[in-house]
């Protein structure tokens, strides 16, 4: 059992009770700070370095073949706490050589950045690794409509990310060789 020791505060001396020496030393500190190097980041011209794993604006990415990865499973829409995501699912037509085996793709994909709270759940839940919160953090617009990112804008911001899975590529190879019945 540890015994609690009550530390008595040392009584203040007369000079301490007037506070004046303390005030003087405080003044000295602030004065010396006048001439120290400033730490301000001149924001629009200088940009901060973004740490890894930063959660910026959510974007849609394409796979290395430049194909749409999102299959509109709507899990992000489901998991989104502020209901910022709105997806209209759509078919991929059968005559689309590249992607017909994927079957489904979003017809429209909207993220309302006025609602988004940058929680990153959408990125976490995405089974196709199609949605990423990237480094862009400054977002502004003149109207509410402008801040609703549609599919086109989301892909424009997202770009292409390296992909280790090539899921649909494998699927296609399987189809072409091997186990087709």
């Amino acid at each position, binding site marked *: 059992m540890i015994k609690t020791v009550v530390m008595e505060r040392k009584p203040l001396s007369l000079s301490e009770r007037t506070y004046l020496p303390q005030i003087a030393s405080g003044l000295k500190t602030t004065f010396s700070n006048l001439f120290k190097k400033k730490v301000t980041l001149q924001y629009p011209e200088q940009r901060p370095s973004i740490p890894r794993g930063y959660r910026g604006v959510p974007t849609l990415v394409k796979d290395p073949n430049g194909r749409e990865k999102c299959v*509109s499973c709507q899990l992000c*829409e489901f998991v989104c706490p502020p209901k910022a995501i709105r997806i209209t699912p759509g078919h991929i037509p059968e005559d689309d050589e590249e992607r017909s085996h994927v079957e489904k793709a979003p017809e429209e994909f909207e993220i309302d950045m006025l609602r988004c709270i940058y929680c990153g759940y959408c990125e976490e839940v995405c089974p196709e690794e199609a949605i990423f919160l990237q480094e862009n953090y400054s977002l502004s617009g003149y109207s509410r409509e402008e801040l609703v990112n549609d599919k086109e804008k989301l892909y424009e911001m997202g770009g292409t990310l390296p992909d280790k899975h090539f899921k649909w590529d494998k699927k296609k190879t399987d189809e072409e060789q091997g186990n*087709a*019945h």
Partner: protein
Amino acid sequence: MSANVKVDMVTIILNGEEVEVPDGINLIEAAQIHGREVPHYCYHPKLTVAGNCRMCLVEMGMPMRDRGTGEPVLDSDGNQKIGWIPKPVIGCGTNVSPGMRVNTDSPLAKDSREGIMEFLLVNHPLDCPICDQAGECRLQEFAMDYGRGYSRFVERKNVKPKRTRLGPKVTLDDERCILCSRCIRFCQEVAKDDVLGFVDRGSYSTLTCFPGKELSNNYSLNTVDICPVGALTSSDFRFKMRVWFLKESPSICSESSAGANTLVESREGQIYRITPRRNDSVNDTWMTDSGRELFKKVKSESRLTAHRTNGCVDTLDAAVSFSVELLSNEKIAIVGSCNSSVEEQYLLRKLADQTKAKIHLPGHFGEDDGLLLSADRTPNLRGALATGMVKKYPSDNLKPLALQLVKGAVKTLLVVNEDLFALGITKEHLKKAKIIYVGTHVNETSKMADVVLAGLTVFEKSGTFINRNFRLQKFFQAVPGPAGLVPDFLVLNRIASELSGKVAESLGLESLWKEIGKLRTSCLKGIAYREIPSDGLDLDPGKLADLSYVEGPALNFSPIKAKTTDKMKPKAAKD
């Protein structure tokens, strides 16, 4: 399943617990009664047992008897010895018998399930993100509950045809099929349209339509409902919405007097699909394809979304007071509808009594398909009879009204949701008559009407229907109606109140039913709204049974007259 049939109970020992179950049922049902889930794919309570998925494997044993003497074999403690069957048995194909020992979660049963799950998943594609079944997929659920959680399969998965068109409404993805054969059995046994089958063997086995045929009967979408995986999907609902977003509201199919129980599935005020709701006294677990399409009329172009007086959009207050003005005149006739709910028909009858109007009721009839599409194509013809709105069985036209119009005996017409011009009335007849139209969609009558009171569809309001079995069934609002519209029964109530010079009280279905329950000569006497069970209430038709109904024998239904003459044949359509 009828209550009056005495069911013998037998005692079995389920997971070491002594329980009583009805005699003759299989182990899946028996376990379900006592809260134990036995996972299964091919078994369906309304179909014959196939026993080909092997998912429902359980451990089973019987008390041992000596083969020769039939004496019980006792162990050293003096208890009867249990003869455990060395291999697991399928729950669906094994019926209970007295003293039976069943273990649904013994290590053997668990191990069997895990093995079956692994086999089923060997070739099943990981399509869940794009698969419409995701969220209501048995394979997903059981893989979570009973699967081993990882795959030892390293080879390439089978590739089979995807996006195959089975029929006008059904799309097949063969890769996802687990060959449970539910759809095949449904087509053979219920729809009586034997078009589906398996071809090839082993891993090449594939579900397909027989050559030259397609799955095009009016019950094809039930195969989608019973498919435990995403192999069969509705072409219409395909990729429209994920099922976990959908809100389910119990409703009644308004297609015909069969009154199939349904679930209306909607998201944010928009209906995406209608699925059947199990009711063993009405529709089992089925419904028609045509009935699933009815929701499309809710948002159609021809929908009436605002009240009108003299062709101009107006408020409800104005429209009602104008209607009251018109109805205060002499020579009024009312055209009721078999599509209206019981409550609306009752209020219409009240209105007729107040205005001394005669009610004409046209019927809508078609072919009877012997299942769930009856010859009477309205949901509530018997409601009109039960509320006493009409006494006679309706005919398919309005000739008496036409005659009266010609005679000039009718000056004002209140039409509820019927198109007069489709029922033998001509513009010539209506020259001098004022028309008040209460309805949901634009038709020739609503275009001519002086007052249009826009109403709500069956999906936007609550109420009750009486089906061909004289079964009183409730339906509930699934989606909000267009802005500014109120349920028809409230509109009719306002008109009725204002006609008698009172201010309309706010009215709920509960309080309206207190009034309806007071009808003296009706079979609705004494019924309270809240006491109607969710799966319906059988009414005693009384004298109404003697009318000549048009429906023929069908699923869970035999015409009452036929029943009296033909007592020998039990339940004609059921097997």
